[in-house]
């Protein structure tokens, strides 16, 4: 471990908490608003914040998503730096005008006058059989939306580093907290430095296949890598960490070496960000330099409640292993 001595092992949710805490201590313009945040937040992300910063900087709000989002923007326009907590990603759908038409556009539309320095935190993904309205992963939408940075970390350290960067960013950052990984642990430095957007993390090294992923699916990818390694298959596993900007150089360099690309995401495969990764890599390298390029995502169905049904639609380690083997073995027509 090359982590500094002042490193602690923390859960992912606690890592995010520490990052927000550090930045709120550092900069009095940083504050947080959202439902129940004064009571620590739904996942304890803001535990103790009310006592530390008081009710003007830790604002529990009504169930008014449009205004949570829009007020965060307004407060940024006068020079504060709000952390907009959306509780669960799916509720962002109640605040899309504010996010899409206002936050994402305002800097450009006003010719640079506006500084929409907000972080929008959105715990997303499948978690404890919460069914169709509480399980969505639509991060690819926002990679397609001009004006926003899209972060989707998978480890405590990346959560901490990216959240610090997000809070310090003058551009709006959409921060996808992986709710299913809130409990995973890992080292986090006591003093958290910002992690630059757009730099992938090399998770595993291998020469047979490039596996690209982000957010909550990473642990399954690692499990799949273990299984593949046991069969002698070496995987280059890349965690993009941010989807915009994204590290297309790292992916292209890896695929140039392995010749084979598999992109895996929890989100629905059709129209997911995996398509962008495949398309862009093919554009960069040319099809002739690539032996296979494929994706594995969820089928285009809402997330069902019942565990056996959820299992069917969910991307899992065995499915990743199978997709990896198909990518290695059968470059043509997968289905």
């Amino acid at each position, binding site marked *: 471990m090359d982590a500094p001595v002042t490193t602690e092992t923390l859960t992912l949710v606690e890592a995010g908490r520490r990052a927000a805490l550090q930045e709120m201590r550092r900069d009095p313009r940083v504050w947080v608003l959202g*439902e*129940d945040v*004064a*009571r620590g937040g*739904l996942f304890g992300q803001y535990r103790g914040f009310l006592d530390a910063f008081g009710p003007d900087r830790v604002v*529990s*709000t*009504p*169930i*008014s*998503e*449009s205004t949570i989002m829009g007020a965060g923007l307004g407060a940024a326009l006068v020079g504060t730096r709000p952390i907009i907590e959306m509780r669960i990603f*799916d*509720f962002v*759908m*109640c605040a899309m005008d504010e996010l899409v038409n206002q936050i994402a556009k305002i800097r450009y539309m006003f010719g640079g006058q506006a500084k929409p320095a907000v972080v929008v935190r959105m715990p997303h993904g499948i978690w*404890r*059989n*919460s*069914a*169709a*309205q*509480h399980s969505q992963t639509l991060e690819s939408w926002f990679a397609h939306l001009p004006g926003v940075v899209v972060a989707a970390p998978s480890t405590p350290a990346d959560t901490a580093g990216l959240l610090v960067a997000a809070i310090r960013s003058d551009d709006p950052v959409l921060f996808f907290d992986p709710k299913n990984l809130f409990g995973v642990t890992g080292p986090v430095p006591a003093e958290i430095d910002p992690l630059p957007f757009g730099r992938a993390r090399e998770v595993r090294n291998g020469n047979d296949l490039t596996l690209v992923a982000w957010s909550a699916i990473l642990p399954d990818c690692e499990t799949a890598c273990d299984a593949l390694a046991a069969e002698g298959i070496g995987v280059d596993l890349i965690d993009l960490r941010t989807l915009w900007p994204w590290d297309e150089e790292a992916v292209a360099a890896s695929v140039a070496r392995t010749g084979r690309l598999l992109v895996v995401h929890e989100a629905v*495969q*059709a129209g997911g960000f995996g398509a962008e990764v495949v398309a862009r890599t093919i554009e960069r390298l040319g099809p002739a330099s690539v032996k296979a390029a494929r994706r594995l995502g969820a*089928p*285009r*169905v*809402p997330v*069902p*409640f*019942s*565990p*056996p*049904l959820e*299992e*069917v*639609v969910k991307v899992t380690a065995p499915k990743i292993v199978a997709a990896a083997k198909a990518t290695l073995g059968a470059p043509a027509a997968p*289905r």
Partner: protein
Amino acid sequence: MADTAPTGHNTRRWLDLYRTMVRIRAFEETALAAHAAGQMPGPLHVSIGQEAVAAGVCLNLRADDRITSNHRGHGHAIAKGAGIAGMMEELFGRAGGHCGGKGGSMHIADFSVGMLGANGVVAGGIPIAVGAAQGLRLLGSDAIVACFFGDGAINRGPFLEGLNWAALYRLPVLFVCEDNGVAAFTRAGEVTAGAGAVARAEAIGVPAESVDGNDAAAVDAAAGRLVASVRRGDGPHLLHLRTFRLLGHTSTDKAAWRPEQEVAEARTRDPIARLRARLIEAGAADATLDAIAAEARAEMAAARDAALAAAWPDPATAWTDVLDTPAPEAA
């Protein structure tokens, strides 16, 4: 509101109410225990302490009337007549659930009895309810729609939009604000400015009244009046029912932030106990009431056992009910 004087007619209605309320309570207590035992997946929001709302309103609805509900919707569904077996199987994610296991507790629907669905989004049922009323009128029906939502929902935009819409088109909707004084972990008073749901509704042109939502007979009486008015074509009304959420927000939340005394005090206003007292006063026998309660508990235990023994959904059903035009990957 003072207790209504008991009469034979009332006693019969009250027994109906009582039966519905103890069935709701028994259903949810059974579900809670199963959830605590790790037998039930997903989140579970129970309405224990709020049963008079569902029972009192739905007793005044016809079979072809519709309701929309929220995340805390078991009571609304049961009171509207949803099949218990299908509800219990749904909570356990089984094939025989009303939604084939695809919905779970937060997405119970039983269209066969006019229950158009619980909703995982606060205030999500409001626009749906007004549209359903508009559609019913277009079809020439005189059925009405009762729309249940919590105090938290009145701070979301659709509350304004939906009430304005219903008033504008004079739609047959009864808005029911189930005000338990709390939204998740935050008190209603801390997030709601002004005088509340009734004042807001009236300002939007929707006549409204407020009733003790833990007094089942009072709820029944008020709902009866308002439902009749709505059905007559007077346009929408709002019924504001003050109640108390005796347990936490979800089955795993202890609501430890609430003073114990507050909850203890609220327990003395338990709507089932109150209705029971009133029934006894009106001449009902303890044994009758005990039998109803025991029957309800037995019904729910049996439903639970059946659900636990029931088949899981066929994995192939993960691909159905989504688009008539099949997706390539589903082919």
